[in-house]
């Protein structure tokens, strides 16, 4: 191409951009945008402190409700308070991480409606990354903190015969859970390509999901447990691995080894959510709405 403006250096950087892995590029763009939002947030410090506290408090309420329940009963669905706290803390920490990383995807419908999604499509970064990093809200650390505190309390009080495998299960469970919830966020966002006003459906699976997982599976009807095991694999966030750690039987009678599946389930669910996202974006680009 006859080109008198671009220099040899530019040509080299064009070559360079070909072999860069898309994953790395995406993470880099995510980091860049997140840094901008964090600085924006810090221009309103008082507001940030207030909302971070609110984020912490509102999640703490759920646990206070559980504490109040246990002031009336010793067991809930056959589980003691430390055991429920273990489930609660694990679900809360996983969800908090996913919410921090991907929670902003629930604004996709709004962006489509006001037309600002288009401005993201003309930038050299994956749209999903830009949507996820949009309005990155550090206040969501409040939720993670609260989840980890409850998890800490649970680990200190729950009666578990610890083995190295069980110890390793804890970080594996939290991280895989966060990835599963992230995939839920992405799938929910993809759904908003079709129904722009339906952010609440996403909430049912994200906020609703974490509320569900805070309680023992024995509390719920078998069909519901089957649904969140085989259809939307939320049970792999904390129930199945945590039941293994606590030496408890799964109400569906699944074998022990399913407790080790969360990383695989997370990967598979990510692939499904990614496909849904791609289909949604393709639909948007062909219909413009």
């Amino acid at each position, binding site marked *: 191409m006859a080109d008198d403006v671009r220099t040899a250096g530019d040509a080299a950087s064009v070559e360079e951009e070909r072999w860069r892995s898309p994953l790395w590029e995406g993470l880099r763009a995510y980091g860049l945008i997140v840094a901008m939002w964090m600085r924006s947030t810090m221009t*309103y410090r*008082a*507001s940030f402190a*207030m*909302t971070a*506290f*609110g984020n912490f*408090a*509102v999640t703490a*309420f*759920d646990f*206070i*409700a559980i504490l*109040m*329940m246990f*002031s*009336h*009963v*010793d*067991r*809930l*669905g056959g589980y003691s308070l430390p055991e429920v706290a273990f489930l609660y803390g694990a679900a809360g920490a996983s969800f908090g991480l996913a919410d921090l990383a991907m929670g902003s995807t629930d604004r996709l419908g709004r962006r489509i409606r006001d037309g600002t999604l288009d401005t993201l499509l003309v930038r050299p970064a994956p749209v999903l990354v830009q949507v996820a990093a949009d309005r990155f809200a550090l206040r969501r650390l409040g939720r993670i903190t609260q989840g980890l505190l409850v998890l800490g309390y649970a680990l200190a009080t729950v009666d578990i015969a610890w083995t190295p495998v069980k110890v390793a299960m804890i970080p594996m469970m939290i991280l895989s859970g966060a990835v599963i919830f992230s995939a839920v966020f992405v799938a929910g966002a993809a759904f908003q390509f079709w*129904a*722009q*006003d*339906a*952010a*609440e*459906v996403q*909430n*049912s699976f994200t906020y*609703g999901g974490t*509320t*569900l997982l805070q*309680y023992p599976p*024995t*509390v*719920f*009807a078998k069909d*519901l447990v089957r649904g969140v095991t085989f259809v939307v694999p939320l049970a792999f966030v904390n129930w199945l691995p945590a039941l293994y750690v606590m030496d408890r039987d799964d109400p569906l009678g699944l074998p022990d080894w399913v407790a080790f599946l969360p990383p695989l389930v997370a990967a598979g669910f990510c692939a499904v959510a990614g496909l849904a996202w791609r289909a949604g974006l393709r639909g948007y680009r062909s219909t413009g709405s």
Partner: protein
Amino acid sequence: MRLYAAVAAGGFRRYATYRTATAAGVFTNTVFGFIGAYTYIALWEQRPDLGGYDLSQALTYVWLGQALLMTCAMMGGGFEDELMERIRTGDVAIDLYRPVDLQLWWMASDLGRAGFHLLGRGIVPMALGALAFDLALPTRPTVWLAFLFSVFLGVVVSFAVRYLVALSAFWLLDGAGVGQIAFLAGLFFSGMLLPLTLFPGALGEIARALPWSSLLQVPADVFLERHTGWGLLGAFAFQAGWAAALLALGRLLQTVATRRVVVQGG
């Protein structure tokens, strides 16, 4: 009066246009209703008369909470952001000079909103709950009427609180803090988390005396026929008392704020 009826109708229509959002909201209410119902079953299996409710009353309480969550705006929302924005930008000065009452205007609009939310977000989750679980539904029409009246008073109390929150923007540059506290208080003290009769000791007594109990706890108890005869009148008086006190406080603040706007030259 006709003007405020029109404003209320406008508030109703404004929310009625978002059909997908309403359907999605109903879905969410239903999901949370199911989760709540199962945890209550586990709880009441252990303690069949906890908080003075039997199991089917407890389940009814869960679904009433979902049905009234939006109607009584227990988590805030509705109009505060809009009014705060008008206060911040100074547009409220125009409102104050119009021949309509600011507080009544916004209340009419919020009642319209609540009316839509009761129909659009309340009935379907309640019906689905009644299909899936054995709920304690009143058989006498008078109880239903009393319930609706109690919900109406609950909406007014909720409005009065949120109006105070919005007016805080006259004094505070950033209203996020006050809004946040009101949101947390509404969630905690309305009985949305757990029936207030389950709150321990003094905390329970305080919670039941605070205005937020008018949003869910009192209407639910009317529905479950725990307030009858003079007790029912007492419940209404409790709600109406808080409504009157908070509306009066709002009016007072509004007067002070108006003077402030006038002094500042609008």
